[in-house]
């Protein structure tokens, strides 16, 4: 597997607080990298830094060997990096199909081609029945699927998913997990933030664990789960940063 995303020493400070401090990890093409950590560990900030939504204080982000550090979000997206947001951001006044068309229009200027691609993405996330509804009418689980479909319609090389199973009811989770695995089987590289450890252990090839803005573990899921620093962080102990 070749290296697709290479994050080196990424740092972000808010005044005296380090939201991300010297975080280094990489993602191989076709794998699922999971990011775990308690609230406030800096997971979503890390996504913002990679995708250009916030400027970095230090560090570099390489996509397929090309430096994308500090580029604008739309340019990074154009290079094949899709993302979803923890706080869902559907285009509320557009229909479900139109929402996904916006994603497809990133790679085509034909409205017909964009619509077909959008419908295919909606079929993939099992949201085709809702295609003519307004996005604001969807449940949280459906909105998560919509965001996923919107990102996928861009045909990205890598997708960063912020808590796919967060805030949805328990019955919806298996379907979302299958969706992520199906996506992987189609060759999409995935970085996913996840609170649900069971889900993470099932889907991730490797896991990056953060605590208070620092990397405390990075590696195979079993090794990360049994890492004393990760156990400490999750059980409320005070972890020393690696």
């Amino acid at each position: 597997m070749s290296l697709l995303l290479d994050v080196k020493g990424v740092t972000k400070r808010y005044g005296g607080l380090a939201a991300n401090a010297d975080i280094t990890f990489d993602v191989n093409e076709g794998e699922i990298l999971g990011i775990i950590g308690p609230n406030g560990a800096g997971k979503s900030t890390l996504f913002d830094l990679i995708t250009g939504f916030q400027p970095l204080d230090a560090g570099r982000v390489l996509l397929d060997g090309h430096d994308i550090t500090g580029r604008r979000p739309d340019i990074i997206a154009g290079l094949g990096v899709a993302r979803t947001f923890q706080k869902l951001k559907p285009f509320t006044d557009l229909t479900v199909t139109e929402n996904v068309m916006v994603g497809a229009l990133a790679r085509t200027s034909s409205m017909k081609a964009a619509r077909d691609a959008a419908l295919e993405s909606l079929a993939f996330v099992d949201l085709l029945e809702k295609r003519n509804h307004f996005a604001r009418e969807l449940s949280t689980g459906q909105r998560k699927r919509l965001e996923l479909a919107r990102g996928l319609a861009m045909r990205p090389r890598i997708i960063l998913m912020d808590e796919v199973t967060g805030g949805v009811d328990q019955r919806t989770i298996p379907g979302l997990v299958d969706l992520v695995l199906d996506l992987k089987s189609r060759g999409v590289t995935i970085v996913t933030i996840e609170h649900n450890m069971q889900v993470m252990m099932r889907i991730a090839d490797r896991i990056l664990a953060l605590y208070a803005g620092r990397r405390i573990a990075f590696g195979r899921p079993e090794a990360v789960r049994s890492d004393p620093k990760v156990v400490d962080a999750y059980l409320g102990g005070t972890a020393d940063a690696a």
Partner: protein
Amino acid sequence: MASDQARMLELAKSEPAWPRPPLWSMGLGLAVAASLLAYPFVFTSPFSHHLVILILLYALMAQSWNVVAGLSGQISLGHAIFFGIGAYSSTVLFVKYGITPWIGLVVGMVLSALAAVAIGVPTLRLRGHYFAIATLLIGSSVQIIVQRWDWVGAASGLYIPIDRTSPWLYLQFHTSKIPYYYLALGATAVGYGLVWLLRRSRFGFRLQALRDEPDAAASLGIAIARHKVLAFMISAAMMSVAGTFYAQYVLVLDPERLLSSEISIIVLLMTVLGGSGTLWGPALGAAILIPLSEYSRIWFGGTGRTIDLIIYGILILAVCMWRPSGILSLFEEGIRRRKGSAP
């Protein structure tokens, strides 16, 4: 299961990209179009022509405001600048160089688009109310500058000299308002047609996306600042067209009136009342507010000026309370949702 999904996908792809409007709305549209075409011959008084000319011009102005506010989500309170640029461009070129207002119209559109770039590049980075405040202040500043600029007539403005030699070349019709009526109708129809196309285009989709969620739009490859500035340019050029036609219609430029923030606010009120972001909302807003304004002026004389604003205020309050997205949004949503879509 998979074959069900495949069938549904094929069905969805075979559906028309844009839902066909219901018959009643197509009938209503045809009836309105026919009425507008026949109107000057059914109602023959100059006032009845004047009233609809104003409605049409304001419908165009409100639509222009709707492009920047309704589609890209930026509240501009300085749109009178572009109205003024359109009016002054054609008038100055005609008064000083004898150039036809048709060329002045194009010059005004280009200058307005350039002014939109000059204003938009620094200010469209501002989010929410800051952009509105910035455009309000720039609008007031432009008015003050024009009122002190002798070359364009300063505070006393400019009068367009009467020319009876070639009415269609110089856009002056002194015996009837009917040509003005059809010019306003044509300009407004073209403006609405272009916005109809815009809303269905890639650019229009991207504008609506960044209006709803700028961050999500950026994450889908949309260059936010560039799209907002482009929308502002299109909007400014449309507003400028209305300015040129208005100047040719009244034949006098008064910076106190042409460049006042009142114009910027009235086009806002019309759009919000009818339905910001909808295609026909601005026209509906103009069709309600202009008669209110004109009749209150007639009934109450000079004192009527404030009464129409009081009525505007009450209407806006009512819309904000009961239908914040405007009167027309109710119908447009129903049409876009399509009949027979799954619950």
